[in-house]
């Protein structure tokens, strides 16, 4: 629609800018320099004594703490423990969500029976689940993995069911025409056609899995980055606390990026068909 596009192009009038300055801080680089400036401000405020507190270490010390944490093993162990629980809970939660979602899509009665329960459980704020689970599963991995699995379950379930329901009529009719048996229909038709929806749920769940793992570690037990951060807070070791947060954010970023890469590969047919 060229006529439409031309309408937005309005302010074409040449605004004069000094090219040299623009090349250095213009465009996306502006934001980069903004972050650098904030970090500098942090460093200076801590060093100059503007803010004097163990809780406010200079960035440089935090960077050192990152290196030490990774080398010394303390922080590394905490981080890998958290990542393990995130991964385990994620797999358990999403697998059960996909299976239940696909099953429920095949029966209206089953949906009507179970959906109200699911809708009542879904809005429950995750941290509220920790205390009762501690009673049954203790303070360690089983409890935390369950918390993560429970968190991941809902978005994946809702998306799977929605996807399976939306493709139901056409694809199932095709399968039925060819006389495909029930299980083969499930695996060969329903599952692949639902995959884009499942992935949408899985993507949302990554962030939630991290949040719930960290939350569980903060509330109960003595392991993982969540616990590490709170204990460094109590101990007044600000640099170590910020180092842990930095690495946690980095892991979150890496896992997300990895997921997006995998999704692109697996779903190229879906995105190119759109």
């Amino acid at each position, binding site marked *: 629609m060229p006529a439409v596009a031309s309408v937005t192009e*309005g302010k074409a009038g040449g605004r004069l800018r000094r090219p040299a300055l623009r090349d250095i801080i213009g465009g996306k*680089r*502006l934001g980069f320099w903004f*972050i650098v400036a904030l970090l500098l401000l942090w460093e200076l405020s801590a060093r100059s004594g503007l803010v004097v507190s163990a809780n406010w270490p200079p960035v440089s010390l935090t960077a050192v703490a990152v290196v030490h944490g990774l080398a010394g093993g303390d922080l590394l162990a905490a981080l890998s423990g958290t990542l393990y629980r995130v991964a385990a809970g994620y797999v358990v939660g999403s697998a059960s969500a996909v299976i239940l979602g696909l099953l429920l899509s095949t029966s209206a009665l089953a949906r009507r*029976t179970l959906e109200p329960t699911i809708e009542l459980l879904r809005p429950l*704020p995750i941290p509220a689940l920790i205390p009762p689970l501690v*009673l049954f599963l203790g303070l360690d991995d089983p409890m935390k993995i369950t918390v993560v699995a429970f968190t991941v379950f809902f978005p994946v379930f809702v998306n799977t069911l929605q996807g399976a329901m939306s493709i139901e009529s056409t694809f199932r009719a095709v399968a039925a025409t060819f006389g495909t048996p029930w299980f083969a229909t499930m695996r060969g038709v329903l599952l692949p056609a639902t995959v884009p929806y499942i992935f949408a749920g899985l993507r949302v769940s990554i962030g939630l899995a991290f949040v719930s793992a960290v*939350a569980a570690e903060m509330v109960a037990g003595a392991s993982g980055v969540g616990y590490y951060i709170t204990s*460094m807070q109590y101990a007044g070791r600000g640099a170590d606390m*910020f180092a842990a947060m930095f690495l946690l954010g980095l892991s979150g970023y890496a896992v997300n990026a990895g997921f997006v890469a995998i999704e692109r590969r697996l779903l190229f047919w879906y995105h190119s068909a759109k």
Partner: protein
Amino acid sequence: MPILRKFVDLLPGVAFIAAVILILQQCVEAGVINRALFPPPSVIASTLWELIAGGEVMGPLGATITLFAAGYVLAAIVGILLGLAMGTNQRVNDLLDPLIESIRPLPKAALIPVLMLFLGLGTTMKVTAIVLASFFPIVINTIQGVRGVDPVLVATGRTFGLSRLAITFKIILPASIPYLLAGMRVALGLALLMTILSEMLAGTGGLGFLVLENQRAFHIRQMYAWLVILAVVGVAINAAMVAAERRFVPWLDKYRVN
């Protein structure tokens, strides 16, 4: 008979929930489930009734809901305004986008300890935690919505003589609502999560604190009763969101379908 039809539709679901409660009751009474860890549902119900009848529930309930609402509303205001600014102004976007993208992957729960260091254990800390966690999805979805606004709508505003500011609020904002609401729905869950978690970690009151505290003190009946209240709050807040959408944005689903 639409009412009858609705009743029939709901019947299996309600029957299922009733059955689960009954079975739990039997299991606890038969000793299959440890009574110390899970009291019979009837006991939880009577504890719950005591809390309600005694008026004990009102304080913590009000505190938690107020906290949630303050944080969520603030996050929505900040998120929407920032999203509009970043979506309509390339400079603002260039400046803030890298910062937002680099903070976004951090699981926001991890912010609470830091905030406790600087802001203490009070309301300021909790509200800040809620805002920091829930404004991200709102900003990001608002930006996406703003970018997706049909140029014809904006040009319509221009031909009718609207200023840039008027176009932003009278045209771009309402046109972005479908995306904006998607962000607000995600933010709702996060805001509630942060409300409860910050109450638990600060240990100064509220529903989240009470659930955790009663568990630690091994007041199991009370813990479950407060948990039920918390679950009801969750369901009610979600229902309120759905109702608010229907009430204030009646054109939404039709618009989406078209």
